[in-house]
Structures are given as C-alpha cells and as structure tokens.
C-alpha cells in the first residue's frame, strides 16, 4: 500500500514544473497549459486526501475546480484570440501596454 506522502510529493513536483513553465515560456497558449498543470497537481493532492480520509468532500472540490478550470480556459482562449487579432502573435512579451 502506498502511503499518502508519495501522492503529495508527486503533486508538489508537478506543481513546481507547472510554475517553472509559467515563468519560462513566452507563448500564451503554452502558459495556459502550464496553469492547467498546476491546477491538476493540486487536484491530485485533493483526491489523495479525500480517499485517505474516507471523506467525499475532496472529490466535490475537485469537481468544482474542474469546472472553474473549464471556465478559465474558455475565457483565456478568447483573450488569446483577441490578443492575436491585435498583435498577430501570442507572444506575451508584446503585452507592454500597461507596463510602467
């Protein structure tokens, strides 16, 4: 039987990879995928805690975070399309309008 520490460690590693991806990548679409990676990493630890405690509420929380992730992906991709229409690229280095 696997102890819960391994699941949480896996979740931490995946979250870190996602965070590094957000900092490294310049492509807005890949940036969104890295955010999805981080959300999924947190979902693993939620499901692990839920199963190990024998409590169904973690599963519900994962369902809600899944729907929030879907909404976020829809709005984010619409933003990317609007960005592409204005600058003809999805490079986030072009987004300097509100930079001081």
């Amino acid at each position: 039987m696997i102890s819960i520490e391994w699941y949480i460690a896996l979740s931490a590693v995946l979250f870190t990879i996602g965070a590094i991806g957000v900092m490294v990548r310049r492509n807005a679409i890949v940036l969104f995928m890295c955010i999805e990676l981080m959300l999924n990493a947190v979902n693993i630890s939620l499901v692990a805690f839920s199963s190990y405690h024998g409590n169904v509420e973690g599963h519900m929380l994962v369902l809600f975070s899944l729907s929030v992730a879907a909404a976020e992906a829809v709005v984010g991709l619409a933003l990317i399309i609007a960005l592409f229409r204005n600058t003809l690229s999805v490079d986030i280095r072009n987004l300097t309008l509100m930079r001081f």
Partner: protein
Amino acid sequence: MEIYAFILLSLLAIATSIGTVLNRSAVNSALFMVLHLLTLAGLYLLLRAQFLAIIQVIVYAGAIMVLFLFVIMLLNVEEEENIIKNTRFGFIGAFMVGALLLGQVVYSLLGLAGILPELSGQAEAIGTVEAIGDVMFTVYLMPLQVTAILLTSAVVGAMMIAEFTHADGTHQDVIEHAPEDQVEEGTS
C-alpha cells in the same frame, strides 16, 4: 502490484509535464498535456476515485484540450525557437524559484510526517457516482448552481471578448461580409 502502477504512472506524469513545458511546438505541448491528463486519470483510479477518473478523461482530455488544440490550429502559431537559449538568465532564475518552491512544500510536509492518515477503508465506497451524486445534490446544491451560472457567464463573456469589431464600431456579419463573387465561384 499497486506500487509498480504508481511508479509507472507518476514517472509518466512527470515526464509528460516536462514535455509540455519544454516543447517548442505548441501542438506537441498540447498532445503531451493530453497524455499527462490521461496518466492523472490512472492515478485517480489508483486512489479509488472512479468517477473523477472518468470525468478527467471526458472533460479535461476530451473537451478542454480539444479547445486548446482548436485555438492552436486556428491561430497557426509559429514555433518558438530555442526557448532555453534565448532566455538563459530567466531560465536559471525560474529554476531557482521552482527549487525554492519545491523545497518549501517538502519542508512543510516533513513536519506532518507522523499525522498523515492511512488509506481509509471507505475509499472505494466514496469514489462512486452514487456517493458523489448523493452529496452533490444535497449538501453542495447551492455551489452546483453557482457553477452552472459561472459556466454560462464564461461562455457569454468569451463570445463578447472574441467577437470581431470593426474600427467604426460595427460588428462583423459573416453572411453579409462574404463577397458575392467568391460565393458564386464556390458554387460553380
């Protein structure tokens, strides 16, 4: 047996997430991401969360990633060249911050070493559709409705954002906008 499945799935999950982050082509990144989400569904099955595993495959790997791929194909983005070489300083900085983050999480975990729970005997009972639906439509009915409103408003907002507007403020009408000679060429 179970531990081998865990090792295989977790290594695959880590490898595919690295593939997502470090791939030059956005399409390949998205395909790695699909594989990552499928391995996560396998991990959910190991955790006896059958319903969430199916939902993960249908909603994440099926719907959300298809939306991502659709946008990538629509925008026809060129490949990034040398994502590491061009931003070497930034890459090192990001790696340091990531190592710091991981170290902090692992350190805070070490403090919990003795009090983490063992796998509950009820784990198989709570992962079923029956158990989740029982809670979803009683205790969490209100948040469920709020989620429905959130998804509706997200779709409407996405349509508002992505809608094409001319410089003079008029909206594009697809049927009127198509030149008639092109339509005739298409039909003849």
